[in-house]
């Protein structure tokens, strides 16, 4: 026993052990406690003096035939170090935190063999209170599970919404197309003469059914793009030809909106690799928006310019520009600017969302500029093809 009392630097070993922030027990090969530190007084009712000299399993009879005893035996018999993790052994020692509701403390235990000067085999048991670490990790796991659950719910809701929209739109499209074409026939007086009052109502019905059909088509298009089912037929396109075609395709729009489309600057040799139909869809959306927000008789300009391997195609109007508060959400689905008195422009609110997805699929970018002097320039950039 006296060999334990002093270290070579004359510091009593007991003082060193009592200063440790973890529990230390040294037992001999008959499980008799040779020493233990005052750390245990925080977690048991035994004082140091009461414990020393007693057998470990007399103080803690519940430890008999447990993993801890087997680990101690293994260390004493085989002189191997043993380790008990908190995850596999919740509270190997019955230790309670008397300062905190008498809660059992979570423990991590190391058992190492040591030999006394008389060659007696002993082992030193070190116990660390890992309650705080366990609580922290458990909290983190709960938060992670919650985040995962929320993510799954959000995903399910998004999927359900998408399925609902697609199903409903599918079921609406055919009858709507039929209604629209019938009304168009009536409006074109193909079916015979119609009184003017009735004609106004037919034209109104035709316009609204057309809008509904556009909405349904846009929803279906967007769903197709987002689910990756939209196929892209990529080919080399001449940009000047594209802009010219876009103007021709939108002549009716220009007439009805009382605006005109013009190609401002476009080198006739600019080429991009893109799906013609999808790019035309983007052009039509941008031109339709420009027409919607331009005053009567205004000119809308289409430009294309090459800079550092990138072609920028833009549609510029002379309207009132885009409200600051709306700019951040302009490419979001069903996003429409409030024009005041809760008036919203016509349209589906999906056009720009579709444009963004199409351009991104072409590895391009799409954005807009609202200069201080007014008007809006919507543009998209694609990599140029060098012929």
């Amino acid at each position, binding site marked *: 026993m006296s060999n334990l009392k002093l270290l070579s630097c004359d510091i009593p070993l007991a003082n060193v052990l009592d200063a440790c922030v973890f529990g230390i027990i040294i037992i001999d090969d008959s499980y008799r406690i040779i020493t233990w530190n005052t750390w245990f007084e925080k977690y048991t009712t035994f004082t140091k003096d009461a414990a020393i000299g007693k057998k470990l399993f007399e103080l803690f009879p519940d430890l008999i035939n447990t*993993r801890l005893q087997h680990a101690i035996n293994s260390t004493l018999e085989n002189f191997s170090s*043993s380790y008990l*993790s908190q*995850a596999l052994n919740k509270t190997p020692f019955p230790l309670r935190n008397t300062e905190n509701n008498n809660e059992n403390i979570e423990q991590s235990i190391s058992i190492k063999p040591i030999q006394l000067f008389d060659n007696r085999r002993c082992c030193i048991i070190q116990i660390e209170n890992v309650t705080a670490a366990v609580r922290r990790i458990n909290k983190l796991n709960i938060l992670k599970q919650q985040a995962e659950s929320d993510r799954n719910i959000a995903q399910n809701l998004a999927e359900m919404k998408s399925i609902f929209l697609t199903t409903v739109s599918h079921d609406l499209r055919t009858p709507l197309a039929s209604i629209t074409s019938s009304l168009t026939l009536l409006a074109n007086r193909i079916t015979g003469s119609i009184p003017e009052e009735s004609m106004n109502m037919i034209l109104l019905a035709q316009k609204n059914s057309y809008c509904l059909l556009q909405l349904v088509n846009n929803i279906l298009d967007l769903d197709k793009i987002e689910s990756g089912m939209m196929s892209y037929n990529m080919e080399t396109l001449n940009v000047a030809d594209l802009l010219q075609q876009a103007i021709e395709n939108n002549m009716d729009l220009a007439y009805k909106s009382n605006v005109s489309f013009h190609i401002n600057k476009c080198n006739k040799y600019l080429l991009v690799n893109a799906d013609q139909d999808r790019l035309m869809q983007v052009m039509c959306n941008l031109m339709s928006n420009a027409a919607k927000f331009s005053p009567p008789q205004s000119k809308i300009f289409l430009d294309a310019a090459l800079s550092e391997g990138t072609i920028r195609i833009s549609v510029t109007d002379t309207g009132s520009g885009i409200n600051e508060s709306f700019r951040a959400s302009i490419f979001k689905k069903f996003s429409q600017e409030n024009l005041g008195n809760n008036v919203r422009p016509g349209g589906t609110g999906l056009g720009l969302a579709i444009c963004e997805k199409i351009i991104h699929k072409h590895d391009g970018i799409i954005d807009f500029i609202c200069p201080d002097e007014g008007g809006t320039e919507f543009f998209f950039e694609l990599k140029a093809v060098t012929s």
Partner: protein
Amino acid sequence: MENFSPLQNDLLTEAFNLGMGLAASALSQMVGEEIKLSVPKLLLIKRQQAAKILINKNITTVTGVKQHFDGPFNGDALLLFPVENSLALVKLLLKNTVPDDDLTELEEEALCEIGNIILNAGLASIANMFGQDIHSGLPNFIQGSSENIMHADNQDSLVFFMHVDFCIAAANINGYIIYMLDAQSIQDLGTILNKYLKKMSLSK
């Protein structure tokens, strides 16, 4: 370098399997689930070869436990798993309370304990069979490439390489036990085995 004879090889394999039996029993008791461990074959090969075996099985990153041992021979004992296997093993032993796809600190410690039980059992079995004292240190969690962990650049060094099968709750999980000894230790072990074999043949 010493190569062991088939008889010496068989003796070691038997000793390890006895040890695995004890380890399985200890683990079974801990988790309340029947666990079977077996070491079908033991190879004495160079570190580079051992690393190559793992790489050939597409096991480039391993997770596991390492502990040092000394006595009549010295070295490091390793229990290694492909990363996904270590997670699967811990999940089974903790009865699927592991929420994540990565091991947290607590699960790493659980793996350390499992490794400690298994590696100690192997060494204890050898020690008991041959009447030796082998001391092992505390386990450490390790993760990394097979080559780095086995110091495959140490070309002259041999390792005992064992494929270990865990069978828990109808699931089979494969791991590897490796005892890395230096040349002198291999020789010393060989001497111990020869003495034992001689003793056994004299006692017949």
